[in-house]
């Protein structure tokens, strides 16, 4: 479940990363973060996503179909492997359900499952949706320029504030000049890199700049590669689409 939720969160970051086009004026650190996250809020999204997870040298492949609407509605349906086909997750606000054809009925998962963090214990979906990254961290930004002095992007350094629900010592977030999320490096509290998430293969869909590949590599070598196939934004998705009945229908 963690991997699926991690995927969902990454997907939403990726979507948000490209939603906003480049601004004309330089922004402060908090505003850059806001630009990165602001785009996908309240919008609908649909895609097929291929996930390859490598743990201890063994790779498993999954294909899932995802629908999201706003900050608190998401439906994830597993397409492949065949053994898990038809099972999926539904998030409605603070509630989370899991369905498997073998169970025959959807079961509610503990609300704490919703806080399942991105990439294990990184910023959660809620953090990104509700702008808590800037609330929980002191953010410093520095411009990254090319050899010609032109602005290439921004390097944001996020340090957790006292009492913030953050287990990391530091996050280093690289954003392009177009405010597309490019890379996140997670440091532990001893200064060591725990994992990196790279956002690659950016495509333009209408106004949107969208990374279609997300590669997460843990310090121990485990990795997850996610390829977003045929992404659609702003599709007509009524909130009533996200129901337990639909989850159980396995459609």
């Amino acid at each position, binding site marked *: 479940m963690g991997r699926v939720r991690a995927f969902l969160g990454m997907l939403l970051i990726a979507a948000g990363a490209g939603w906003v086009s480049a601004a004309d004026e330089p922004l402060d650190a908090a505003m850059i973060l806001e630009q990165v996250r602001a785009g996908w809020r309240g919008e609908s999204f649909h895609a097929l996503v291929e996930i390859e997870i490598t743990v201890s040298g063994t790779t498993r492949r999954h294909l899932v179909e995802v629908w999201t609407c706003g900050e608190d509605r998401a439906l994830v349906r597993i397409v492949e492997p065949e053994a898990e086909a038809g099972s999926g997750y539904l998030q409605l606000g*603070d509630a989370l359900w899991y369905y498997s054809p073998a169970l025959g009925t959807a079961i509610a998962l*503990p*609300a*704490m499952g*919703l*806080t399942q*963090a991105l990439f294990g*214990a990184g910023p959660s979906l809620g953090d990104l949706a509700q702008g808590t990254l800037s609330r929980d961290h002191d953010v410093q930004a520095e411009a990254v320029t090319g050899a010609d002095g032109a602005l290439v992007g921004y390097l944001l350094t996020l340090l*957790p504030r*006292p*009492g*913030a*629900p*953050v*287990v*990391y*010592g530091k996050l280093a977030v690289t954003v392009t000049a177009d405010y597309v999320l490019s890379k996140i490096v*997670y440091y*532990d*509290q001893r200064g060591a890199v*725990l994992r990196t998430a790279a956002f690659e293969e950016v495509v333009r869909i209408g106004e949107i700049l969208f990374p279609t590949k997300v590669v997460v590599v843990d310090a121990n070598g485990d990795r997850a590669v996610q390829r977003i196939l045929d992404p659609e934004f702003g599709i007509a998705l009524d909130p009533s689409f996200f129901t337990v009945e639909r989850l159980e229908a396995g459609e």
Partner: protein
Amino acid sequence: MNAAFRIAWRNLWRHPQRTLLMTVIVAFGSLVILVLFGIVDGFVGSMTAAHVAEDQGSFQLRTAAYAADPALEHALSPEQLAQLGVALNGMRLAGIAPRLEAGAMLRSAYGTDGVALRGIDPVAERTVTRLPEMVVAGSYLTGSGEILLSVALAAELDVRVGERVVVVVSGSAGVKSRGFVTVGLFSPTVVEMERVAVASIEDVRELTGVQGATSLAVGLPHGTPSERAVAEARRRLADHPDLEVAGYFDLNPLARVMISGSTIKLIPFVIMIGLLAGFGVANTTFYSVVERTREFGVMRAVGMSGKTLAGVVLLEATFVGAMGFAIGGGIGYAGLLYFGRNGLDFSSFVRDVSGSLGMPTVIYAAASGWYWMAAFSVVVFTALVAAWYPARRANRLEPVTAIREG
């Protein structure tokens, strides 16, 4: 009679190997009985003492609803806490400490684990449990934003003193999370306590949205019997059926099953050990009597009465029993005293097999005086009973027949 003593004593050392064999048998029986009683009683004592001193206090006060269903909505309200304070006023107590406990997820950069989050009043807690003395790294809680973890939990999540962890709680205020700085690590002997993370009660109230406490833990002055205090508290709260006074067994229902009659349950083992020792003594004594039939016949012929001869045989068994008991009992008692002071570390066994039963990882042997009496009674009595048949045979020997047939 002095002659009988002398003869019996001299007889023993005419066959030192046989005497040593019987002594070893009796010593082994005494040792096993003493150790059995000491360890079992020590286990019970260690378990109750560890629970009281490290975890729950002498007794607790909670709502009857919380006892039936330990959910946050059944916590004591601030008004009930005030009522309890008034009700217990005047009782001879060491202290009262409010607790607010909730299931929580604890996260570090390296993992996530389920814990019981216990909110405490750091000052009041000192009067009820020895939590401050259990801190083996860092320091005890001093205020908000701090958390204590067990050494085992910290190792599992790879957390060091000074590092931040995140606690996620599902309370009446929904799912809330907060970062805490790990200020100290404690080392409990009760395995259950390894899954407890301790923070200030105000922080836990803020996270859960519950303003009261799930329980009031009560500490008693040293030497005060808890049963009497529990009865007194129940009497004082008789008009409050919604409140419950929970004694040791109410808080540890599994312990009741484990402890009840634990000493009585040992009796079959003690009887078996007594029989083994008895057969050993009887067997050896019997053959020593058979072997000395001719000798006994001569003794009867020169005027020794059958009764005195039987007395000599019984005295031999008594000497052997006494020597065996002195050796076995001495070694056993010294061992119990040593393990009563230093404890027996069962941590790997307890963690693997029965951590959920609330058994302590270190068991301190008990060394009560009555074990000595029990072992002495069993072993010496058995030795005497075992020597009775050979003694009877010696008593009935006909001198002429014995000399001819021996």
